[in-house]
């Protein structure tokens, strides 16, 4: 019969604790295996046995003690506390959470209401298709007061390509304020009037925090400092990084370093999204994958990056439908947790064709199947 030893937390192996690699190597050479042995030795004995200073030994022991004491010692609810919930609690939380609407009903429909908070949404597309415009729209929409159906938050806009145009944001903001005024007039409720007092052009612009990052080091530093910034500005509900691909695509010789940095970045962003209840929106470029007989346009930054985003939107020009004065934009949601119906991977594909003021065709695509038109609806 296999021996099932009851192992308390103190028997935790040193390899699983966040110690510096050099220190860990010394400890292994000296024969230490579990946390208990380390704590038994004490700082003086430790510094003598492995040849480090007493301060370093104390520091190491503190790290070990903190990890092993676990969550009892950590303050509840703060960042770094365990994020443990039952699915029921999460469902209640999700149902009361708002969405950031995009003012394109077709896109809002496909996203299940709008851009979700606490998730990473990636927008990919060819140059000029409208990614930055959509980001600027979202930076305004996140500020819509709650009585009009918004989340009443602020926005952080991190720009790496320099494509942020303030005058365009002014246009968008003015139109949004106008829209809210019309709703207020139609519905004549008191809280609408009150909300409109603070929802003005100057207010909207002053609550978009703009950062310009010129290379990947600045971008990484900015994301690293973001939690501190968000702790001071707790109303931020949207973080946009316009152009996550740009700093990483040119001038990068070490591709494995790039993969490592991007994955580390993805984890930092998901922590930010989760802890601060914010939506993180990234824009990505497209690259050509040259296959054996044909070449396809795929999102840049490689396949490992594909897993970073929870929702991925791919926009491209569609020249197949009848030529018309309106431009056609195809929205492709490549991965989303919101598919109704069967969850079997090879089976879901729904084609929804809608048109709005900019004619767009939306379809949800799975990598290995053919497209089939299932339903057709026209929204004026």
């Amino acid at each position, binding site marked *: 019969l296999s021996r099932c030893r009851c192992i308390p937390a103190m028997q935790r192996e040193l390899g699983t604790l966040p110690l510096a690699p050099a220190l860990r190597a010394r400890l292994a050479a000296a024969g230490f295996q579990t946390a208990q042995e380390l704590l038994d030795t004490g700082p003086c004995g430790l510094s003598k046995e492995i040849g480090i200073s007493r301060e370093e030994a104390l520091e190491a022991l503190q790290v070990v003690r903190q990890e092993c004491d676990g969550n009892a010692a950590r303050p509840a609810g703060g960042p770094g506390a365990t994020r443990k919930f039952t699915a029921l609690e999460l469902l209640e939380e999700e149902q009361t959470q708002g969405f950031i609407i995009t003012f394109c009903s077709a896109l809002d429909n496909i996203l299940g209401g709008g851009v979700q908070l606490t998730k990473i949404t990636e927008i990919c597309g060819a140059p000029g298709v409208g990614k930055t415009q959509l980001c600027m729209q979202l930076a305004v929409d996140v500020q819509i007061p709650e009585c009009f159906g918004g989340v009443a938050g602020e926005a952080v806009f991190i720009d790496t390509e320099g494509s942020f145009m303030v005058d365009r944001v002014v246009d968008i903001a003015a139109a949004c304020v106008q829209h809210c005024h019309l709703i207020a007039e139609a519905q004549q409720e008191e809280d609408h009037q009150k909300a409109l007092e603070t929802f003005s052009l100057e207010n909207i612009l002053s609550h978009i925090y703009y950062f310009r990052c010129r290379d990947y080091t600045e971008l990484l530093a900015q994301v690293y400092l973001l939690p501190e910034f968000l702790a001071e500005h707790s109303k931020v509900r949207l973080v946009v990084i316009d152009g996550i691909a740009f700093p990483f695509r040119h001038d990068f010789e070490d591709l494995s370093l790039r993969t490592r940095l991007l994955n580390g970045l993805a984890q930092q962003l998901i922590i930010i999204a989760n802890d601060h209840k914010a939506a993180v929106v990234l824009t990505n470029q497209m690259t050509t994958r040259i296959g054996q007989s044909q070449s396809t346009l795929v999102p840049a930054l490689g396949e490992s990056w594909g897993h970073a985003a929870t929702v991925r939107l791919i926009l491209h020009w569609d020249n197949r439908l009848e030529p018309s004065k309106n431009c056609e934009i195809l929205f492709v949601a490549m991965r989303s947790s*919101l598919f109704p119906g069967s969850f079997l991977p090879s089976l879901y594909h729904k084609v929804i064709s809608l048109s709005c003021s900019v004619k767009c065709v939306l379809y949800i695509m799975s990598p290995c199947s053919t497209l089939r038109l299932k339903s057709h609806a026209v929204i004026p």
Partner: protein
Amino acid sequence: MVVLRAGLCPGLTEDMIQLLRANGIRTVVDFVSSDLEDVAQKCSLSYKALVAVRRVLLAQFSAFPANGADLYEELKSSTAILPTGSPSLDQLLDSGLYTGEVTELMGAPGSGKTQVCLGIAASVSLGLKQHVLFLDSTGGFTASRLYQMLQAQTEDEEEQLEALQRIQVVRVFNIYELLSALQELRDRLSQQVVSSMGPLKLVVLDSVSAVIYPLLGGRQSEGLALMMQLSRELKTLAREFSLAVVPTGIQVELDIGNGDVLEPSLVTPTQGL
């Protein structure tokens, strides 16, 4: 490589340890593999005492041999098969997920790994009324989607809510948090605390690559070491507590020589789990 300490076993005193250390014997392995007559002479310790200590150490640190037939009986009585909720997947897995085993789901982005995980969690929680632990490292767990799946399987609202309560979600966004969470799980299970946790049968880990990827590559081999630690922890958890463990990941080609991660290919799975 356990270091010899006073009190490790009766008869092993501090003086004895100092003498042994002076002659280069620091760990249990050193002691047990050395020639005791030689040691007795060099350290001027009693041979009988050393033999007695060695006997106790061997008994304490060696593994028991097990009879093959006993192992088989134990396996038959403790293994359960969990249906995944998808008949074709069940068929592929030879009727379902086996407890005591680690079943890994690999796939390209958007291929449906999280959806399958949610489906399995829903099926085990609703159908078998067992508890599920969902370790989420990508933020991709959407409770509304899980609720949709439950609604499709049963109309009874109370059953749906109960099923939701049986699924515990822990969000771990880096490798150390993940290892802490697994350690906590181990503590809870080994102490057999009768808590709201109930009988746990399934642990889903979505995804492993999200926490491992930032560490792989480069000149340090720390990433590989942590990956091995993680895989060993998952396997021993599955075996010792009769759980079905389902990690998900992406296929990656590792250049073991310099630890570089090559661009992921869809051809061969090489991740070491």
